[in-house]
């Protein structure tokens, strides 16, 4: 119930409290915890395990930021949001940052006044159908009922895709990934469409994942990344460079295991030294400790480790690195230099 009123309460919050715009870092420090806006439940990316602890790829990014600020990855309060409520929660000051597989688009960046801080997962929108329907291509979906999460870019891509291919469909709007799963399995819709990573994650939770196929078409670019509010550049820098640091760590071969050793004293590699704070003071420029990046890596590992642990080929989600491999391996993950 409460969730459906969030739009209204957030509009109210905008009236009531003065949004904490400048000085988010000070607010976070004073509060003693980071408020991270995450998905209400998407296996592999952001979900609660049996013991009620938040887990996943996006959650680990939140933990990295908390570790960079406080030295403690557990100082995070997770604020689960639906596709519809996430921006309002951020803009009304009820959260500090969005790590919720959110697509970076022009309108969101410019008009919704979000500040996107890079891309931590390159994705694209796909379709999942039951194998028994015998569908081979998304273009054969004329007349199908399509389950879709409302308030997302996928909703817009879907309309574009069917319009440009001149085929019809029945949109079945759904609030969350969990409800979409229920409706898809009950046969309310023939097709479920969302980011390909989300499809893989959802399929992994089925009893019979082998009976569902993800169609070959990827109909959109979905660069997913963290977002902050417009107007607080220091805070934006912290989010951007903490996520960059995780990628840089993978490039430089810094892992959760060896970061303690490499960060203890200056090594022969000046790049590693600058990143881990044994040479220069990049952390200080951000308003953080010298060893901010080392703390983040210590907490969650480098980008590759986060990927493999949560969504990689050895997990039930089973996603390949693909576009998300390092640029040196033919992927798109690339960080500007730390200097």
């Amino acid at each position, binding site marked *: 119930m409460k969730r*459906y009123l969030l739009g209204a309460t957030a509009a109210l919050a905008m*009236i009531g409290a003065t949004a904490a715009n400048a000085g988010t870092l000070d607010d976070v420090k004073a509060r003693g915890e980071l408020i991270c806006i995450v998905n209400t439940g998407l296996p592999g990316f952001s979900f609660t395990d049996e013991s009620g602890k938040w887990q996943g790829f996006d959650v680990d990014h939140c933990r990295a930021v908390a570790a960079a600020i406080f030295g403690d990855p557990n100082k995070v309060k997770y604020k689960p949001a639906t596709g*519809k409520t996430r921006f309002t929660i951020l803009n009304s000051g009820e959260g500090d940052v969005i790590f919720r597989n959110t697509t970076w688009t022009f309108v969101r960046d410019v008009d919704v006044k979000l500040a996107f801080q890079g891309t931590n997962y390159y994705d694209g929108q796909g379709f999942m159908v039951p194998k028994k329907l015998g569908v081979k291509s998304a273009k054969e979906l004329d007349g199908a009922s399509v389950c879709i999460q*409302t308030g997302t870019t996928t909703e817009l891509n879907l309309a574009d895709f069917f319009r440009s291919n001149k085929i019809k469909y029945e949109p079945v709007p759904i609030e969350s990934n969990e409800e979409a799963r229920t409706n898809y399995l*009950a046969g309310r819709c023939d097709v479920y469409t969302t980011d390909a990573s989300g499809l893989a994650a959802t399929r992994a939770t089925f009893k019979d994942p082998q009976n569902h196929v993800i169609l070959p078409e990827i109909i959109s670019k979905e660069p997913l990344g963290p977002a902050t509010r417009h*107007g607080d550049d220091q805070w934006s820098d912290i989010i951007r460079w903490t996520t960059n640091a995780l990628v840089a760590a993978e490039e430089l071969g810094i892992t959760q295991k060896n970061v303690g050793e490499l960060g203890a004293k200056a090594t022969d590699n000046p790049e590693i030294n600058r990143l881990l704070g044994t040479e220069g003071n990049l952390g200080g420029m951000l308003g953080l400790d010298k060893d901010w990046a080392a703390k983040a890596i210590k907490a969650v590992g480098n980008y590759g480790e986060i990927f493999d642990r949560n969504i990689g080929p050895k997990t039930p989600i089973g996603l390949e690195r693909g576009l998300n491999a390092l640029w040196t391996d033919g992927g798109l993950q690339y960080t500007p230099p730390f200097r």
Partner: protein
Amino acid sequence: MASIDSTARSAQTDDGQRNIIARLWYDKETRSIILQIITLALLVAFIAYITTNAIANLKLLGKTFSFDFLNDPAHYDINQTLVEYSSTSTHFRAMVVGILNTLLVAFCGVILATILGFIFGVLRLSPNWLVSRIVYCFIEFTRNVPVLLQILLVHGIVVHLLPQPRVAQESANIANSIFFTNRGVFAPMPIPEAGFNIVIGAFLAAIVFAVVFAKWAKAKQDATGQHLPVFWICTGAIIGAPLLLYLMLGMPLAWDMPALKGFNFRGGFVIRPEFLALWLALAFYTSAFIAEIVRAGILAVSKGQWEAASALGLPRGRTLNLVIIPQALRVIVPPLTSQYLNLTKNSSLAIAIGYMDVVATIGGISLMQTGKEMETMIIVILFYLCVSLTISAFMNWYNRRIKLVER
């Protein structure tokens, strides 16, 4: 007494201003004016505060306050549209679609809730123990379970229990023309052909005739005491005349039959599970409250009225129609209005099952895609306010009409 008072007053004049304020304060009328001014000032200050705060916050975020976005293309599709709409239509159009969907479910809900409510309310008073107990259990269940859960429950039942289209084609249908699937109920859609306008004309004429006839019959009864079977004659005219003409004209109505093509049934007329679930759940929930209101209204009419009617030899049905219900209505209508308003406002829970009402379209997807929280929420709030006030105004008019005419 008066002299003491005046001396005391003159003695106090030296105290100056404090005295005047005290005197003003102890004067009942001035005090109430002062308090009202203070309250008003606080209210104005509060509104000014939240307005400036909202403006300041919007400015901080770099957002402008403007309704221009309504003219931009919406870029999303809606599954149930009463007017023409596509993803290239504007946000304004999407809002209209949402508003119509809200009004549709509210209108259908109010009608069904009223019918069910009156039936349940009367049955609840039935002398038959079993009937009254069963209705009692139904009422207590529906009105004590949150309506959101009931919406989800009905939707769950429709989506999980009804078969998929392919199965429905084999088994779940009536005469191979109405199909019950978990994608909705598909029924043939009538398409008028040449000559059907005459049938519609006959239907309208029959309604006019019925109204005139009922008035005439009442006048006749008042004058002569002779009673005519008005109900049966009117019903016969309204149903019979168009039906007769329809058959005589050779049934000028084509039917667009639903047929399974590919993934879904196509053609015909569809009631989607989301509409069905929202409609039924809202109607059941509200009907339970209406039933209790109707029961209270009937019980509020004193026993003497029943006895007097029966002493005059009126049968039970007539007693209800002519004596009890007209008096009960005066008790029933004001709380009934609240129930209609509740139903309309509860329809905003539609988004829980993905029914595209005004909250889901302009207050949901449009809000999300444009980031215009303030503007869209203002639209939605004003819409509900207007609808509620309209319903209130209508019910107040009706209430005045049926109130006891004192002679």
